[in-house]
């Protein structure tokens, strides 16, 4: 009989906390509004604040258990999100990695739980909390990728990305069960956000190292490889290189010809 009671207690406590928080926010907001009325004229800022508030609501429902009440992190469960920036949030949420299904070495890409709009709201909330790298403007990115120099992107890809993700963007193994995921079918903005923020074990490629335009070039190259049909035949053997080619010569070549020898030498 005790459990439900405790349950109600927790709920009440949470509701109380929320009410107090909203109250405090309202108070702070009110004071802020009173002292800085000019800000209201700024339309995008107003939208941003609205978005961030929406994001906070989502955060409190879905993220708070691992990342803590004010995204300050919970030891052993989830890192602090202060300063990670909106780009990281949008990458993790849109690629379905967050929320995580269970605690494991590496979060996997899966079906996204939130809509892109919700992800944007969450990103706005985190952005507002501590700043950090922001997600790229979608239209700018699309334009930049469309006009990027693919060859230059290829050079950057091979020296910076191929070591983990492979020459053919198929991904690869890292130490002790970790891996670099495949880049096929990854939306361009997520590739951009990943470079910018360095999710999980991926190194960060900040704008000073790989400028926004260079990132667009890398993305253009990845897109080119992923969308260009291989000229060497319909069976690409996963572009894994010599290992699957070796498998194919035995499974297709030797098997076919061994069956042929059975037929040739068989009694007719």
């Amino acid at each position, binding site marked *: 009989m005790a459990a439900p009671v405790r349950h109600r207690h927790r709920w009440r406590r949470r509701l109380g906390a929320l009410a107090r928080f909203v109250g405090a926010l309202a108070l702070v907001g009110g004071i802020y509004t009173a002292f800085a009325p000019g800000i209201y004229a700024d339309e995008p800022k107003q939208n941003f604040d609205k978005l961030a508030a929406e994001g906070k609501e989502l955060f409190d429902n879905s993220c708070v258990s691992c990342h803590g009440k004010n995204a300050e992190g919970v030891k052993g469960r989830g890192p602090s999100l202060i300063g990670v920036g909106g780009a990281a949030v949008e990458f993790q949420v849109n690629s379905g990695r967050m929320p995580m299904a269970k605690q494991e070495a590496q979060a996997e890409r899966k079906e996204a739980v939130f809509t892109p709009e919700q992800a944007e709201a969450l990103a706005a909330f985190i952005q507002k909390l501590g700043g950090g790298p922001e997600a790229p403007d979608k239209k700018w990115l699309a334009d930049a990728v469309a006009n990027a120099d693919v060859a230059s992107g290829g*050079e950057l890809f091979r020296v910076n990305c191929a070591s983990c993700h492979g020459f053919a963007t198929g991904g690869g193994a890292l130490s002790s*069960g970790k891996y670099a995921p495949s880049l096929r079918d990854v939306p361009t903005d997520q590739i951009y956000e990943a470079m910018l923020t360095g999710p999980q074990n991926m190194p960060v490629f900040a704008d000073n190292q790989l400028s926004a335009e260079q990132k667009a070039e890398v993305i253009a190259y990845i897109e080119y490889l992923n969308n260009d049909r291989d000229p060497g035949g319909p069976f690409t053997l996963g572009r894994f290189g010599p290992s699957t080619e*070796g498998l194919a010569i035995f499974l297709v070549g*030797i098997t076919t*010809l061994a069956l042929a*020898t059975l037929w040739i030498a068989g009694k007719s």
Partner: protein
Amino acid sequence: MKRRKFDMKQLPGKIGGELDDRFKLAKPARSLMTKVFPDHWSFLLGEIALFSFIVLLLTGTFLALFFEPSMVEVHYHGSYIPLKGLEMSKAYESTLHISFDVRGGLVIRQMHHWAALLFVAAILVHMGRVFFTGAFRKPRETNWVIGAILFILAFFEGLMGYSIPDDGLSGTGLRIMSGITESVPVIGTWANNLLFGGSGYPGDVIVTRFYIMHVLLIPGILLALIGIHVGLVFAQKHSQWPGPGRTEHNVVGFRMFPNYVSKQGGFFMLVFAVIALMGGLFQINPIWLFGPYEASVVSSASQPDYYVLFLEGLVRLFPSWEIHLWGFTLPAVFWPAVIGMGVAFTVPIFYPFIERRFTKDSAHHNLLQRPRDNPTRTGVGAMVTSIFLITTISGTNDVIADKFNISLNAMTWAGRIGIVVVPVISFYIAHRICLGLQQHDREVLSHGIETGILRRDAQGRFYEVHQPLGAPDEHGHVELEYNGWVVPKKMNKVGALAPAIKGFFKPIEQPRDAEPPAVEGEEPKKEVGAGKS
């Protein structure tokens, strides 16, 4: 003067006569055409290698018309957009040129690479056949030795072919070759300089040097040795399986003409067709994805072609045991790469002589052995096969780890433990299976075939009726000697029941065609009925 009438029908005879006048061909030609060859599917595996070699020569010649083995830096201005304007070696540029800007160049390049993989695969399978059937025994040791050398040459020929396009993957392979060369005690750095031209790795001569070895030196030796290899098979006459009428002193089969030659010709076309199919439909070595070789660039899943994977795997599995002696260093990689390769290449050469030391068998052997009849050799073969498989799998363990969600470190440890444990188990299991099969053969020979008919004796015990394969002596025992060939184990094999209907997926012969043939041979037939036994 009367004009002589020209008679088409006389022409072949006339040509033959003129040729014989000069070359005395009548007798050798006749002997050649009627030479008898035994027929068995396993005798055709070596031909796959021979025929792929011919395809390699044909396609390789085409590629050589366009390939430029030079490491001079140029800028790419070909059709493939993502490499446009980049600096690269002439070798890589001309390989791209073959792939994108030579009409039909890509299909020939892919056929060349597939034919190379098939060449080595067929050599391996053929070697396995010769090994497991004991075909390397006297008088054929020489041909085994030549065959083993052919494998080594094919290995290096392939490795060099993989290296000369100077793409990102082949350059990584070259760097590993350089590292392995450096690991040789005393002469390592000198040997490395000898290979790469003296100005350090990669220098600017390695592609040129490998090219001349790849297109002239090694193919020349390969061609000569293949000639001797096939010539010796011809001169010593092919070995054959035991069977009715077959002895150590004869060869049973069909004549070279027309039967053997037409089958060989047809099979050559099939091998060529399979290579063409793979060259057209299966993309191989897409060098344009790898980019030009740069010392700072590498890709995950960097691997050599499959026949080098066993060495790659050995190198991956070997622990980090570097030895320091008197101020000198013996790198860890020396053991798996140099010693490992040395053992893998030399021990097979000497296997016939090693086996002979143990068996003390100096007789002539023209009859093959079934693998079960030499359990130790079969066990050794199983052991070597398991080592080859484990090292090959370990050579690609990063791809397996990634695609099957296994920890890379776990894969390495599994390989390290596996290479110690599995060969022993493989030997034991193969040995046991051979003995079991032998025992079953002897059992059937002395007790007969299991008929599936159960009877009950007076005491009420059930027993299965066996169909004896020979007439019993006065004690009711059947004494049939095992003659090294298949013992019939089903009733339809001795003609007591209708033969099994032939066909792969559906019957290709009607049951009425498949009536019991009039079998002539040693096994007498007996009627088996439920009523009498």
